[in-house]
């Protein structure tokens, strides 16, 4: 077991370093020199003075040092929580992140909770009652959830809310602690729309896993013993499906993080998603880099946790020498 943990950790570290490197390199590849842009925005456009001002700005931003040094400098800062300074919003990037991250986190957690509460029981029921009307209905719902892109669901939902309930996304965002009711009222809709999209593959997977497990001998034994069906299905059968299911849910996190960006835009939630899009549009590269790295870190950490959980859940791995 320990070897498994160490192995997973050893794979994690180069991956996260790679993510920071790729994000860093990508931002340096964007056309246009940030120093020139800033100087010209400030308005010092006289010929000779402009050149000097640009040079000065480059020294200030540290752009004149070799790339490797810049990367090391950024990385050391990032580890300490300093992600640089946003020139668009005129404040440290870590401040922006600190504000936006909890909102995105809340939205993501709500989405996952809703999706799991909906998808897993539906998949199980669909498998247990295979080929009944309920099964076909469930499969139809999950195929439609797969096919209809999340942003279309979001836009449709927005339309219904606006047209039939006269509700528009509020301009001000209320944090959870300030006013739970208002906060939930704003976040429930993007969470629902995204959960519908995320739950579709989970339902399908749960269904096919359950179909396989139900045919196993130990299920037949449990039924023959006279155990109530509820116990057979939700205790014995479910446990044997958890491993691939949990792994898959972990990988869904990637789709979730991407989908959150879109949902935040539609429902005007000022989280990391809208932050990323704003930053890209405003050429605010330190912020883009920080958000991209943070999301990559989240995703990799989630999968690391899932992998470790997998090691604990699967007794075969747990008792390996």
């Amino acid at each position: 077991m320990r070897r498994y943990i160490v192995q997973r950790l050893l794979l994690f570290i180069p991956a996260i370093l790679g993510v920071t490197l790729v994000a860093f390199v990508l931002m340096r590849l964007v056309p246009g020199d940030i120093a020139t842009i800033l100087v010209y925005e400030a308005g010092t456009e006289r010929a000779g003075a402009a050149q000097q001002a640009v040079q000065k700005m480059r020294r200030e931003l540290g752009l004149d040092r070799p790339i490797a040094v810049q990367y090391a400098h950024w990385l050391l800062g990032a580890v300490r929580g300093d992600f640089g300074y946003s020139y668009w919003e005129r404040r440290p990037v870590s401040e922006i992140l600190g504000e936006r991250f909890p909102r995105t986190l809340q939205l993501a957690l709500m989405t996952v909770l809703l999706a799991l509460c909906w998808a897993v029981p539906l998949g199980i029921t669909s498998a247990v009652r295979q080929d009944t009307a309920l099964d076909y209905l469930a499969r139809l719902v999950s195929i439609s959830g797969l096919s209809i892109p999340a942003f279309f669901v979001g836009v449709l939902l927005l339309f219904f809310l606006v047209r039939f309930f006269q509700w528009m996304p509020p301009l001000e965002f209320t944090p959870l602690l300030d006013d739970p009711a208002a906060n939930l009222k704003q976040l429930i809709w993007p969470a629902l729309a995204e959960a519908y999209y995320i739950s579709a593959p989970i339902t399908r997977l749960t269904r096919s896993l359950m179909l396989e497990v139900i045919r196993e001998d130990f299920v037949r034994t449990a039924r023959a013993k006279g155990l109530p069906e509820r116990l057979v299905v939700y205790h014995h059968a479910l446990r044997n499906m958890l491993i691939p299911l949990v792994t898959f849910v972990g990988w869904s996190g990637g789709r979730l993080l991407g989908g959150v960006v879109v949902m935040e835009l539609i429902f005007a939630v000022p989280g990391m998603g809208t932050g990323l899009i704003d930053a890209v549009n405003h050429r605010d590269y330190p912020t883009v880099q920080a958000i991209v790295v943070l999301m990559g870190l989240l995703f990799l950490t989630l999968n690391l946790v899932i992998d470790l959980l997998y090691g604990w859940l699967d007794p075969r791995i747990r008792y390996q020498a």
Partner: protein
Amino acid sequence: MEQRRELTVAGLGSEAGGWPSVRAQRQFVARVVRRQPLGVAGGIIVLLLVLMAIFAEQLAPYDPKQAAFEIYHPPNRAFIMGTDHLGRDIFSRVVWGARLSLYVGLVSVSVGITAGALWGIVTGYLGGVADSLSQRVVDTLMGFPPLILALSLMAVLQQSVHNVIITLAILLMPTAARTLRSTTLSLKEMGFVESARALGSSHARIIFGHILPNCLATYIVLFTVNVSYAIVVEAALSFLGLGAPPDEPSWGGMLNAAAHAIQRAPWIALFPGLAISLTVFGLNLLGDAIRDLTDVKLRGRESQSE
């Protein structure tokens, strides 16, 4: 060798050599329809889509980029799907959008999956340092949530249809590489590879003559499954304003404009959204059917009804 066996299993009558007869072909089609009715339905949808894309010029009543009409006009006889916020005919844009989506989807998947597959096969076969290094790169690329990576890439490359294709191809490569690497690894252990080496075949000959043909089924499944994925990601990028330029008739881009005018002109959102959903639906059904069919061929057992 393997291809011949597949045709034999399918019962096309090529055991005796030669092309299957018309009767054999009709029986094959009937068997496919019986086994995978949903797949056939999906195939029909996809076929209609392809026809719409090919004959876009003939089908579209107006120029999709021409903003010469009354804005926000609801659907009526002249404009079947109404006009958008710039006065462009939505029906024409939807029709041309089929061409854009299909073009982007097919090209990006062809390039991405093929490149990724070759990458995975070669590094999987060679093993050692090359393999470990390549796996670190794949892990890194897969560490990004896909849409986030796509956004960053589009931020670097400026907005254009070709850059979207490049971005999507890069997105698809790691998955293909990883999947085909594991296929290659299991193929490497098989007897016929060992005997080929013993007979003195060069690495290149083994890769192209033995490993590649056996990866074909996996490749085909990956290909079909990811076309719908590519189309959705392109739509998402355009929806966020970072994909195709707003001028182009992209279904996702149309949804972007629609979201702002949703109360005033809901039809701008409805039709492109339905188009995407229907396309993905058809492709998914088709992809599932193809996956089931290739499973049966290779493993010789009835796949579970899905």
